[in-house]
């Protein structure tokens, strides 16, 4: 501990004699880049609305690629020892006892890995998995493949899940809004909740467009995004509150602009480190958490953007309306 800090300290100690009036720091973003965020906001709002609409249209038309958590059914992942074509696997599973079978390559897998999905019959929970295993054994022979995982979810479980998931995400969003409203004030809370809704819808659209699987862990990712993305709002709002105390004469728009600019560096770096680790998960984490990492990545990126361009304009508009009505 001593050695490490020691390497940093001597340089510091030398400068102690005459502290420079304006110390230089290594920074990607200058302390005040002077970007007029408030003026940019309407255009950006239009852009995000457009993207969200495209995403939601995709959710509406193409739908979400639901995992068996939601649909019920069976998923089996197999890894073949030798090269095997997906067509062979498909034909092996052309079996009278199997309903709506789909075979696809495992995304991010090692090759020769296939994911087989089939619908569940209402009566028995395990039969589909057994039928698939037997069919594969008959076609390719025992020991030529390795069953990586089997998941079976009864239709009953999936039924309430949509409702619970929607409820959880909405509850989280509202709770964040309430918390922020308590810590700051109502407009800030409303701005935060609106921004979180924006993030969730955007991420949903991206998941649909990318054809990523939507399962329980995706919902967990959305909840994480909701809990984390509100941080940037906290930081910016904190700064706005502070600047308002210091300069009571400036217009709110100017102060908001100043606060966003002053905190831009930390906003970007804060999200940057999280995006860095999430990217590592997405690229290296393997097929099991691929869709989870995707949702996190999109959500974190868009969350940073929206705390600047979505929530702050809303707060500004609400605040200005409030001051107008109180003056009247």
């Amino acid at each position, binding site marked *: *501990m001593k050695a*490490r*800090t020691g*390497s*940093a*300290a001597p*340089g*510091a*100690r030398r400068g102690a004699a005459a*502290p420079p009036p304006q110390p230089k720091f*290594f920074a990607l973003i200058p302390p005040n880049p002077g970007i007029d965020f408030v003026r940019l906001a309407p255009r950006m709002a239009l852009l995000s609305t457009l993207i969200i609409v495209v995403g939601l249209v995709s959710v509406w038309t193409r739908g979400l690629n639901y995992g068996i958590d939601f649909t019920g059914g069976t998923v089996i*992942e197999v890894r073949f020892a030798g090269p095997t074509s997906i067509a062979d696997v498909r034909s092996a599973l052309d079996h009278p006892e199997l309903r709506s079978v789909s075979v696809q390559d495992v995304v991010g897998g*090692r090759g020769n890995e296939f994911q087989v999905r089939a619908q569940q019959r209402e009566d028995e*929970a*395990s039969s589909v*998995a057994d039928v698939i295993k037997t069919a594969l054994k008959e076609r390719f022979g025992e020991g030529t493949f*390795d*069953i*990586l*995982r*089997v*998941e*079976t*979810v*009864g239709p*009953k*479980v999936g039924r309430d899940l949509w409702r*619970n998931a929607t409820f*959880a995400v909405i509850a989280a969003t509202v*709770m964040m809004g309430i*918390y*922020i409203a308590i810590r700051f004030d109502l407009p800030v809370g409303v701005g935060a909740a609106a921004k979180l809704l924006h993030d969730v819808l955007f991420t949903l659209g991206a998941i649909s467009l990318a054809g990523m699987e939507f399962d*329980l862990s995706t*919902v*967990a990712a959305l*909840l*994480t995004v*909701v*809990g*984390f993305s509100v*941080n940037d709002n*906290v*930081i910016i709002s904190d700064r706005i509150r502070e600047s308002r105390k210091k300069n009571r004469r400036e217009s709110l728009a100017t102060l908001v602009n100043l606060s966003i600019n002053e905190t831009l*560096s*930390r906003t970007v*770096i804060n999200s940057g*480190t*999280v995006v*860095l*680790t*999430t*990217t*590592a*998960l997405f690229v*290296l*984490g*393997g097929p*099991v*958490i691929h869709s989870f*990492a995707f949702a996190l990545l999109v959500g974190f990126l868009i969350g940073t953007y929206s705390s600047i361009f979505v929530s702050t304009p809303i707060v500004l508009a609400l605040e200005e309306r409030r001051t107008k009505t109180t003056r009247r």
Partner: protein
Amino acid sequence: MSVGYRLLLLAGLVVAAVVVVTPTFIAAPKWWPWQQPVRLGLDLQGGTHLLYQVQIEQAIDNHVERIAREIERELRDAKIGAATVERVDRSVHVKLANRDKRSEARRLLEERFANVLETRESAAPDAPDLSMALVEREVVRIRDGVVDQALNVIRNRIDEFGVVEPTLQAQGEDQIVVQLPGIQDPQRAKDLIGRTAQLEFRLIAEGPNVGTVQAPGPGVQVLPGLADGGGRTQYLVEKRTIMTGDAVTNATPMQSTSMDGMAVNFELDGRGAKLFGDATTQNVGRRLAIILDGYVQSAPQIREPITGGSGQITGRFNFKEAQDLANVLRNGALPAPLTLQEERTVGPSLGQDSIRMGTTSFVVGSALVWLFMAIYYRGGGVITDIALLLNVLFLVGAFALGGLTLTLPGIAGLVLTVGMAVDANILILERMREELRLGKTARAAIEAGYDRAWSAILDSNVTLFLSGLIMLQFGTGPVRGFAVTMLVGILTTLVTAVFATRVMYDWLVTSRRIATVSV
């Protein structure tokens, strides 16, 4: 608290964490004070996860059905003839042979089943002579007890099955989670766990009122079963049960004496032996159906009274089947049927892959953050990096200490925690930079950096914690694994990113007397 004490506290925490974490990574010597490694989830070590739903309503129905049979017996013993005693939902309806004995019957039953049943008066013309419903308190009592009873029964069955470190947990109101590490082909385990194992002995119906398979007579029921020569057939059996599997005290697999294959010998307790003896004495020459979960296993003729309190169930079992049947008979029937709702099996190779990929993404992700912080914030970054190492150490330590299970989503949560933990430090460091730009001294800048950043740090961690709690409420299995890591990670982050770094700065300022900080 002075810097010295805080340093000591921090050092104590580090030592404790190292002690509990060590067995996870290397084989610790015998004298090491902590031996338990971090538990790996089934998705990492391979195994089977089963989620069952207990059919609680069915358990209540079964209970009322048993009461109905008891009522029948009570009335018979009291020489009050009953035409029919039937369960209708949660009530027992009694039609008497002689209506004049209604008040006598009512007095008897109300006394005998006080606190269990309550009489329902009805003026409807087709109402039964007596209608007695299960009281609400009993319903609640059964409902509360069923899941626990089922857990006990399953635990005993699995213990005999021989799985290393199985986990059984009640979840929600009526669900049971069974985790079987190392089990790749769960079919046999599922058969063992899911079987209700309700054993019943009833007589095969005889006489003029038996009816046919299509139209069974009163008091007669059609049940599927195994035919004498093998194959399936339908049996007409009396609804009245002579005895149930409750009376079985021991069961062992045996070579069958009358058929091919294995059989299971059972022994009865004293009460059961007497019931069985009486019934077989009264019914010599008739056929006795041995029914397991509504399926007639065999229906041998009673050649002579069986008073020895033991018998045999045949059914052309193979050895494993006989072994498992003996197991479930010994450990008793489930209080209610279970339905399998979810089954997840992970093979060992995928588990290995997941560990490898999880570790890789953790190492790469952390290294990137680590390097970034050191380059961008120099000295302050290095202090952050030390705190980050402590954070991971404490987080894994908390898992070892708390007996928490590390899953793949948990590892993802760990990776994410690394990315989020430095946020607190970034807030502090950026604030320190601002203060230094205003020309403040190192000491003042540190002071102001922590003071000003604290409320934002607290807010952001509270919001994340709240969403973690919602996740814990909402999610099952994998989602919970992630949520738990995130929640614990928030706590360790507050300890390391705020407390530990502050101690290091204070130590540098007071003991090492540095006058400027590098950030």
